[in-house]
């Protein structure tokens, strides 16, 4: 048992940790309404080839209301409107594009999402507040780019598969801007070495 545990640890430290990209930053969604939030995810290449796995989480908060209540005498108040999703994907990661230390990856993902909101509506005839939370899943496609030694850009889009249960929904489309911490650490080391 002890040997198996040590073997797993050795495998993990040699093949997994050595090939890990840790990305974190802000999530931005512009269509149809502006949302802002945070994301973090880990890309791992367990077999030291192009096959890669990604696991991560992101959450974002709705900032605007769109045109729904524009020009109408309805007082609408959004207390909160939050979307959170966690995903797991297996895909392709291409490293060191054209001799640079850049990465490009594409992952079909299985995503579990949560949408929660509380809102009030008031006019001459109605004054109501409602809170709703719902959970669900969908299949998506995540594109990742790491460039200039540290910056990370990702684009996520749900796919219209399993249409009875899931569907394309603008709510879950988002862009992510952040840093690749593994690359950042590496580039700092490189810089320190060149300064010497």
């Amino acid at each position, binding site marked *: 048992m002890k040997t198996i545990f040590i073997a797993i640890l050795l495998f993990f430290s040699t093949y997994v940790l050595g090939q890990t990209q840790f990305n974190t930053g802000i999530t931005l969604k512009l269509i149809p309404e502006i949302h802002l939030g945070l994301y973090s995810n880990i890309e791992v290449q367990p077999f030291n080839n192009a096959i890669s796995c990604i696991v991560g989480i992101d959450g974002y908060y709705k900032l605007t209301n769109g045109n729904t209540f524009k020009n109408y005498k*309805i007082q609408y108040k959004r207390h909160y409107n939050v979307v959170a999703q966690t995903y797991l994907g297996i895909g392709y990661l291409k490293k060191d594009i054209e001799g640079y230390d850049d990465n490009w990856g594409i992952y079909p993902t299985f995503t579990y999402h949560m949408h929660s909101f509380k809102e009030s509506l008031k006019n001459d005839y109605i004054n109501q507040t409602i809170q*709703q939370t*719902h959970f669900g899943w969908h299949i998506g496609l995540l594109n990742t780019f790491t460039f200039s030694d540290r910056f990370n850009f990702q684009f996520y889009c749900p796919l219209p598969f399993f249409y*009875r*249960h899931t569907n394309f929904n603008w709510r879950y489309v988002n862009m992510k801007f952040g840093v690749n911490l593994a690359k950042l650490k590496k580039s700092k080391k490189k810089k320190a070495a060149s300064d010497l």
Partner: protein
Amino acid sequence: MIIFARLLSTAMATTYTFLTHNDFFNNYLIINPDFSRYQDFFHLGAVTPNTTQTNTAKIYISIAADRDDGYHIYFEHLKTVLTENYPNVDLATDRIKGGHKKVREESLELGLKFILE
């Protein structure tokens, strides 16, 4: 006769038909009611016709569980108006989870089942 609504605007037309001329049809399917552009709809509960006590229509209303921007409030308001003003109306409501197609198909299926059984 059944009047049903799949699109948002027709959901409003169905609601309007029931609230203003409720002897036109016996059964109504209202899917995703939307009053955002016609706030006078909120007032319709107060100007219901004289037939409210005798009306025995069957009404099915459903909404997609993930709709924000006030849709659940329209849904709740409509439910309240119907329950308070139409004591003899047979009302069934559902919040349906899933993608748009699933919500549409399931609403239609559940609504027709409720009305025709």
